């Protein structure tokens, strides 16, 4: 399977223009889980499409890596492989907008801690994809948790950390084989305690939150100047750092900001207005509930957790009602993991967020909770036209759960990416990570 995959990719590479440079604004390499050999129909399933009410006892048909039809009564092609769900549940593949798999991997050792280029508070010119280690065992564990697409971000010690990359969670030897086709890149920024701790702690800028905002303004002023210069003179010399930032000003790269406190998010919004960029989402954002109307007015999304809090001062005011609160206020709300254990349990994370929302008095159903881990992150990641819901034409990224996905006892029985089975409970527990090969461990079981 894997050999075939590589061959396919090599031929695909040959057809593509080779221009993975700083000028690149959309991901160009195509991740392919393989070729779906024949149509598949999952029948008698409870289907949460993330774009419609729950379909009970329904069928989803997919062929050639794409969803063909979903519904109570749909036509099943005669040559289709039939998987009788027998009342089990089907959802879109889960999507995580904030992961560090591959760049902050396990084992986490000084020799492979590639998360932060701590050589300056602005490293906009670097990219997480240059460090992603596809053998991080976390990728497969996440796959077994139903995660089919994820964004790998660098940071957050630097004010401007570098580019983030969106991957399909397929087994591969190189990151190029994982890149989500035509997905936008991100620019990761961070405010608050992390940059201050690392740089201020080393006697460098920024030392305080005043320094944080001042450094941001300086950086974006330079980026504006660079952009204007290049508009006037396209032959002006290219600077990787400023090129990336100019693409943010052009609206081609999505800036996302690691930020916890409401007041700091408001400052970042001011800065975005001053220099002319549009923030895609605040990540972590444990105080987003305090400024929900502002976020709604600015059309800025939030990626956050269901329960994390208090692990540092800026996260002390978290409230577990945040997801429900933001949903109610009309803010685009996604759950994220930021963690290689949590990413394996995003369905439970959504259940916890739903439980907290209900406790706070919001009457949301499964249809809303499933969006927080599928359609909504897809939208924040600029890939909602391709994945995130079970709608005809979209990628066949699908999870068949052993039961209700918000039941803690449910596990992913089958996971499909582009219509190809990547997790199958009927198969053995073989590990795909090369790191785990030959380790006395799971393999002897």
């Amino acid at each position: 399977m894997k050999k075939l995959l590589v061959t396919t990719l090599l031929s695909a590479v040959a057809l593509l223009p080779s221009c993975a440079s700083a000028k690149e604004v959309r991901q160009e390499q195509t991740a392919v889980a393989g070729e779906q050999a024949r149509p598949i129909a999952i029948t008698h399933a409870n289907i949460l499409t993330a774009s419609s009410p729950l379909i009970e006892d329904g069928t989803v048909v997919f062929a050639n890596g794409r969803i063909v039809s979903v519904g109570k009564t749909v036509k099943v092609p005669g040559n289709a492989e039939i998987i009788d769900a027998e009342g089990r549940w089907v959802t879109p593949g889960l999507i995580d907008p904030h992961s560090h798999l591959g760049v902050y991997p396990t084992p986490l050792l000084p020799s492979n801690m590639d998360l932060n280029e701590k050589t300056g508070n602005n490293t906009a010119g670097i990219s997480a994809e240059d460090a992603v280690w596809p053998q991080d065992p976390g990728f497969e564990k996440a796959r077994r948790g139903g995660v089919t697409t994820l964004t790998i971000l660098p940071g957050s010690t630097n004010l401007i950390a570098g580019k983030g990359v969106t991957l399909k969670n397929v087994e591969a030897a190189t990151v190029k084989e994982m890149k989500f086709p035509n997905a936008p890149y991100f620019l990761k920024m961070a405010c608050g305690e992390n940059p201050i701790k690392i740089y201020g702690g080393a006697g460098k800028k920024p030392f305080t939150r005043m320094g944080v905002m001042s450094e941001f303004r300086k950086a974006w002023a330079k980026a504006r100047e660079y952009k204007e210069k290049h508009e006037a003179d396209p032959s002006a010399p290219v600077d990787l750092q400023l090129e990336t930032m100019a693409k943010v000003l052009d609206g081609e790269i999505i800036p996302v900001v690691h930020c916890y406190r409401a007041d700091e998010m408001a400052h970042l919004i001011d800065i975005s207005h001053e220099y002319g960029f549009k923030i895609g989402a605040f990540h972590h954002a444990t105080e987003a509930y305090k400024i929900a109307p502002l976020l709604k007015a600015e059309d800025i999304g939030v990626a956050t957790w269901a329960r994390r809090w208090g692990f540092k001062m800026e996260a002390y005011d978290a409230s577990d009602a945040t997801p429900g609160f933001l949903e109610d206020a009309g803010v685009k709300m996604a759950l994220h993991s930021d963690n290689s254990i949590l990413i394996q349990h995003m369905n439970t994370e959504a259940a916890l967020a739903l439980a907290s929302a209900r406790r706070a008095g919001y009457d949301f159903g499964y249809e809303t909770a499933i969006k927080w881990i599928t359609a909504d992150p897809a939208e924040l990641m600029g890939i909602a036209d391709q994945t995130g819901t079970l709608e005809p034409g979209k990628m066949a990224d699908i999870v068949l759960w052993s039961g209700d996905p918000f039941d803690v006892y449910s596990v992913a029985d089958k996971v499909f990416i582009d219509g190809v089975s990547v997790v199958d409970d009927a198969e053995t527990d073989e590990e795909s990570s090369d790191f785990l090969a030959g380790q006395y461990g799971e393999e002897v079981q």
Partner: protein
Amino acid sequence: MLKLMTSLCVAAFVTLPLQAQTLVLEHAKVLTAGSAGELEDASIVIENGKIAAVGVAVTVPAGADIIDMTGRVITPGLVAANTTLGVVEVNDRANANDSSAKTSDLSASVEIQYAVNPASTLIPVARNGGISRAIVTPGLGRGSLEKLSFGGQAAVIDTGAGQDPIILPHAGVTLNLRGVKTGRAAVFPMLKALLEDAATYAAKETPGDMSGLTQKNWTLADLEALAPVARGEAPLIIEVDRASDISQMLKIGKALNLKMVLVGAAEGWAVADEIADADASVVLNPIDNLPSNFDQVQASIENATRLNAAGVKLALTSNRDGHDVRLTRYHAGMAVANGLPYEDAIKAITVNPARMFGDTTAGEIAVGQDADIAVWSGDPLQPLTDLVVLYIGGEAQPKADRQIILREKYMKSGE
């Protein structure tokens, strides 16, 4: 202690009719975590802060307050094993972390009981996760130590509002064996010698007699703290992951007849039979399944299931942060999803952690136990199940916590 005082005070000074102290919870499904197992349509009688009766056919005392719990599921209050609840308000650079001693003058004799702050805002949040007791462990959960040393004496605390939190001030001595920088080749001989010294001291007839010890730098306080451990009365609480380290530790501890509680034990399943044979217990987070370093290469999502199958007594936890002990019940659910029998999962978050650390006064729904009782809207391991009410020492606990207060404030301002 305070609980006892409160009930005494009520009895002595308040002229309430006796039956006002009696509360009956009726028609509940009761997961006793004890020998009575699971009871359908059962009642619990609470008198003077303790469980006076439990069963399907109990006599309701005349004049008792009766609460119909039809449709509810009742468990013992949950017990968080191995946490910093009450000793860390905020992590990182908030100067609000008092979870380990910053002196080399004391080692085993460090007492975490003095760091517990009953006013911590984490405690009401923990209660809303059904947590009524916790084992606070000093000096664990950190990176590598420079050299081998004990973390100090753990404490069993109570999360009840307005109560003295300390249930047991000396619930064992902690030892962090995660990657001590002096290296295993030095650590194990030294550890063996230290524990042998402790045994020598514990066998002395005259208190304070420090003769015959092989290691230097003992303080009397450290020896006194280790004496109950050396006598097998209190556990040695060892944070350790690698299978070979667990084996070495078990050999040393078994020769000295120590009561051992292993914490973390990422590779524990690989030496499950040895752990069972040494009658050691294990405290673990069942979803820690990643090979975070070369001492955890064999980490497995089935660690809990396999240890349990080998007959090892387990306590299941969330991560160690007090902020997250409210997640304990879901982690137990995830262990069940990966093969742990349900009844064992319930025990692993109630009676097992209590008993491992020497607390016999709570952890089961059984006659004579403190009335620490969690009432749930359904299966307590499910995310969509709510805590209906938590009784601690028979007192219904207040619901407000800092997160709820902030939520209400901003929900109102948005209206």
